[in-house]
């Protein structure tokens, strides 16, 4: 170790189509259309911020962003670099189009191995695909323990302590490092990139890799197939009332009809 006090943290970052614009499926491949400018998934901003804070507290080390995206897309990664991450690794390969979560996990795990991190942070799930299995698959492939649904994270450099959300409340969980931790939204308040940060991000290294550059055990094989896309039973809009000071009476009436009151 060059720096015993330092912490090297990898953050898995997903670059997704802007959630503000409506999603689309490719009618032939039946996978999400990922064209146009991609942005960093909002869910990942919390992980990036958490990683920057942990490295700051440790007094050394750096944050590396790892992402898989089509067409060498780096727009979303630049946001994370502008926030303060030191560098990024991007895997982009046509053979990964429509990759399932296990395939994606294999790719990310192979890329993460190159950095030998103390801690890997990911969001509990992405905003667009939201399978929520990828980070733990990555942990298994790396041989790391994992703690999901963290609502607070701290570390002394050898152990990570997490308050993990549960159905009934939360558990205090500890694990030796290296480990994978997934963070819930709201765990920290993500910083806005400063102008200086945005300028600095332009010069930060983004290592671009393809599948051939990575050592992926057993290669990549897609094990799921989308067979059909259909419209769900639509729910119709009902009565719309503009409040003139007495709309609460209409609600009371409605609740009475339903015999709730």
């Amino acid at each position, binding site marked *: 170790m060059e720096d015993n006090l330092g912490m090297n943290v990898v953050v898995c970052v997903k670059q997704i189509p802007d959630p503000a614009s409506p*999603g689309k499926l490719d009618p032939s491949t039946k996978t999400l259309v990922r064209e146009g400018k991609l942005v960093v998934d909002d869910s990942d901003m919390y992980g990036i911020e958490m990683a920057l804070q942990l490295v700051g507290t440790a007094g050394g080390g750096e944050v590396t962003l790892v992402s898989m995206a089509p067409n060498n897309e780096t727009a979303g990664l630049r946001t994370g670099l502008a926030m303060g991450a030191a560098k990024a690794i991007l895997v982009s390969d046509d053979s990964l189009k429509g990759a399932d979560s296990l395939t994606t996990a294999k790719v990310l795990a192979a890329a993460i191995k190159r950095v030998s991190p103390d801690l890997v942070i990911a969001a509990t799930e992405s905003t667009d695909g939201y399978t*929520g299995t990828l980070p733990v698959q990555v942990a298994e492939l790396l041989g790391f323990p*994992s703690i999901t649904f963290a609502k607070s994270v701290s570390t002394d450099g050898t152990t990570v302590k997490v308050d993990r959300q549960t159905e009934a409340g939360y*558990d205090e*969980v500890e694990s030796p490092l290296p480990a994978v931790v997934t963070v819930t939204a709201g765990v920290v308040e993500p910083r806005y990139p400063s102008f200086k940060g945005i300028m600095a991000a332009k010069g930060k290294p983004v290592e671009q890799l393809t599948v051939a550059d990575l050592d992926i055990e057993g290669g990549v094989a897609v094990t799921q197939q*989308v067979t059909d896309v259909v419209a*769900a039973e639509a729910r119709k*809009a009902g009565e719309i009332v503009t*409040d003139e000071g007495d709309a609460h009476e209409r*609600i009371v009436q409605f609740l009475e009809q339903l015999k709730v009151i």
Partner: protein
Amino acid sequence: MAFDKVWVLAEAFEGKPLTVVNELLTKARELGTTVEAVCFGGDAASYAADLGKFGVTKVYDVGDLGGSLPGVPVASAIAAQISEGNRPDAILFAQSYDGRDIAARLSAKLNLGVLTNLVGLAEDGTSEHAIFGGETLVKAQLTGEKPYLFLVRPKSFAPEETGGGAPEVTTIDAPDAGATNGAKISQRHVEERTGPKLDEAPVVVSGGRGLGESDKFAMVEELAKLLKGAPGASRAIVDAGWVPYAYQVGQTGKTVKPTIYIAVGISGATQHMVGMKGAKNIIAINKDQEAPIFSIADLGIVGDVHKVIPKLIEALKGR
């Protein structure tokens, strides 16, 4: 039927299987000829009979986990069974905190495909997933090696008992998983919430950004209490730290299907709608008449929640 043997991960809380387990077991009976359950946590013998009522003929009990998070030891125990030739065709998990961890570990351990966020599962093994706020259903199939792993959203199927007898309980061991099993629970905290549970309440009142500030969530809680319901929240105000994650309704939170859902100051992001559009009746109050939530509301009030809700609370109190 697509499958011969189907396993269900039977998560339990305070000595009783979760409601979603009964939903999964009911579906498992449609999919396979034999339905068996995997339990963990240490008291499977005490609720095995409850599982039998839903058609389980055999229980594999991983037992007490000694403080480990369930993901690694339970997945290791299941993987060991499969390696020894005790191989189901499919395993159903709830899309829960631990269900996801266990399925993900197992998927990576045995190189198995996993389909998540299912809202439907046909007899031939075709899964259904709601996307774009529930407007579109995607159907998918796993093609690789079995068992197929399915993570199912709670409330996707109606539970139905068969009246079966108590199943045989067999203990299965979790092999030493080395470093991966490093995460240990040191302390558990139960946060008391009064009133009915969010995902079981007949009435849910949820608040969103339109409340303006965190203090105003008290209004949502008061209204929920008056209607004997549970308070919920949109992701926006959970992210903002106004209320804990446990309140969140939506794709990344809970799916609710109450008799009445009241959306207070919620615009209706697709991420929210997918978690509540199954409600029997939806009332929405929002000052923006273009808010997407109005497209699915049975009663939509275009108005200021700070005016409408206090008056509504007043009127309900006066009854």
